[in-house]
């Protein structure tokens, strides 16, 4: 097999995101098995600290695209730079997160390099030289094993938290600068501003116990029950995306990759099915308890304890028990 494995790194506020280390762990394993190289690409402006963080993370090469034009994320500019790197280096495989960044980059990189794309992967194996991935369907109630017949590079995005992360050390990676040739006049988009979430009185990230409401609570009025349980336990309430989408709670209460990552000691998911975007943002909680009528709900795959039943029966009993 020719080519290398290329990991597209992600960073927020000057810190490399965990999904990058998860991808590097997977990439290192395949690179060793196949006897090929592992490269990681970092894009940004003044990336010295990011380069340092990646230099001993298992990669053989850290590719650095450092330019003022990459200071603020732009899907158009980043896709152009990454696609140039992929066309130049012709990796066998490009690994990225199934994240806002990875989703936006995958289609462009695969199309512009003539490769094949499979997104939202959880596991990877090989059939000869061809990748075989496992990915969810139908809200995660079903998994499919899919083999790629199409051409390389194989652009694969992985769900954050789905892959194990192993601390990789050893040799220091070679730093290679990659050219950034962006012609501003040709661009079809430009950033006006980056908007940070309003900081209100609510900060669910600080709560030690979170009682979280999902679509299964069925009605806005039933939030009272969720609040009563939170109060009885000395915790706070939060919610999944549908509850915020319906306007039952404001986005500051929302747990998910678009809103808040939380790691309370106890997370109680009430009527939450467990979409990957939600799970990725709460799976590191200490104790996870899920209450759901649907025994097949994916939330039961991440919870430590589950109650398959009607939350309107179970929660009042929990409130009574907590109040002693």
């Amino acid at each position, binding site marked *: 097999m020719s080519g290398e494995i290329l990991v597209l790194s992600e960073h927020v506020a000057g810190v490399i995101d965990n999904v990058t280390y998860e991808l590097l762990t997977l990439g290192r394993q395949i690179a060793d098995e196949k006897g090929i190289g592992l490269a990681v690409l970092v894009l940004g402006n003044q990336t010295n600290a990011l380069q340092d963080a990646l230099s001993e993370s298992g990669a053989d090469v850290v590719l650095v695209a450092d330019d003022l034009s990459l200071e603020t994320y732009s*899907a158009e500019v980043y896709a152009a730079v990454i696609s140039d790197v992929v066309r130049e280096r012709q990796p066998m495989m490009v690994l990225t997160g199934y994240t806002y960044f990875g989703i936006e980059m995958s289609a462009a990189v*695969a199309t512009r390099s003539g490769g094949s794309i499979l997104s939202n992967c959880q596991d990877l194996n090989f059939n000869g030289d061809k990748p075989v991935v496992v990915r969810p369907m*139908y809200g995660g109630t079903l998994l499919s094993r899919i*083999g*790629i017949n199409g051409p390389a590079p194989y652009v694969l995005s992985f769900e954050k938290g789905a892959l194990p992360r192993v601390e990789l050390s050893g040799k220091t990676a070679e730093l290679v600068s990659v050219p950034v040739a962006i012609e501003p006049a040709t661009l079809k*988009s430009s950033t006006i501003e980056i908007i940070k*979430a309003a900081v209100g009185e609510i900060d669910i990230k600080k709560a030690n116990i979170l009682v979280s409401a999902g679509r299964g609570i069925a009605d806005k009025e039933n939030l009272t029950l969720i609040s009563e349980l939170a109060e009885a336990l000395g915790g706070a309430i939060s919610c999944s995306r549908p509850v915020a989408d319906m306007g039952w709670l404001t986005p500051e209460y929302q747990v998910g990759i678009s809103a808040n990552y939380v790691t309370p000691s106890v997370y109680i998911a009430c009527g939450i099915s467990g979409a990957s975007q939600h799970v990725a943002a709460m799976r590191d909680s200490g104790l996870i*308890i899920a209450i759901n009528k649907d025994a097949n709900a994916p939330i039961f795959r991440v919870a430590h304890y*589950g109650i398959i039943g009607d939350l309107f029966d179970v929660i009042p009993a929990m409130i009574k028990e*907590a109040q002693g």
Partner: protein
Amino acid sequence: MLNTIVCTKAVPGFITDPRVSDKKDNLEYEAGTIVINESDDYALEEAVSLKKKLGGTVTVISAGTLTAQKVLQTGLAKGADNAIRIDVQLTNTTQTANLLADAIRQTDCNLVLAGVESRDNMAAQVGLLIAENLGFPFSYAVTKIQPGNEEGTLKVTKEIGAGLKQCESIKLPAVLCVQTGTTPTSFVPFKKMMMVKKKPVRTYKPLDLESGREIADGPAFKIEEVFPPSESAMAEIIVGSNEEIASKILQKIKEAI
């Protein structure tokens, strides 16, 4: 003026007995009610709302079997002017996107809206692959679409993760993948659905379109198997009366804090 085309997908509310097709290129199943994919519904609402504000037309498009027609009729009942269906059901996102792009190219649209992710295939790529095929700029997880400061542009706000949003100016023609929750979705009364039933739906067979011939060459992906998630990853299920469950769970909570 905006001529918007909205990519919509008909998805089953639930499925039973899933199995791989003989050609290993698709999934077969018994389906419950067919509904419009959630984020596509929001994209449709955005398109109709933009038409009211800025004028122009709205066309709904779907790649799907005859059952997808219901979703297109929902689009027409909500205010779309035209409907297009490509008579094919594919699991492969690249092939689906290429067919949709071929059909979109034959319209005079200058804005393509799609949802962020389909409930069944969960790939989140079709809209973005259409953008690449057509050479349009793109924006994913869009939460707000406004007229731009310059002619021929839109001002778009999108999620970029961890509570951050990016507001950008994007030149038309463009592809925007709309996030859920952008605007309340409307209910379509039965009478309105009946009224649009006779509206024509332009229908393509895959071979009417350029990329249809590639599909005939064989699938680029092979579905080897479908299976339920591992039981070993399952939570320990607490059983008993409500009181017993409450007592056991509270004990676990006490131990954890």
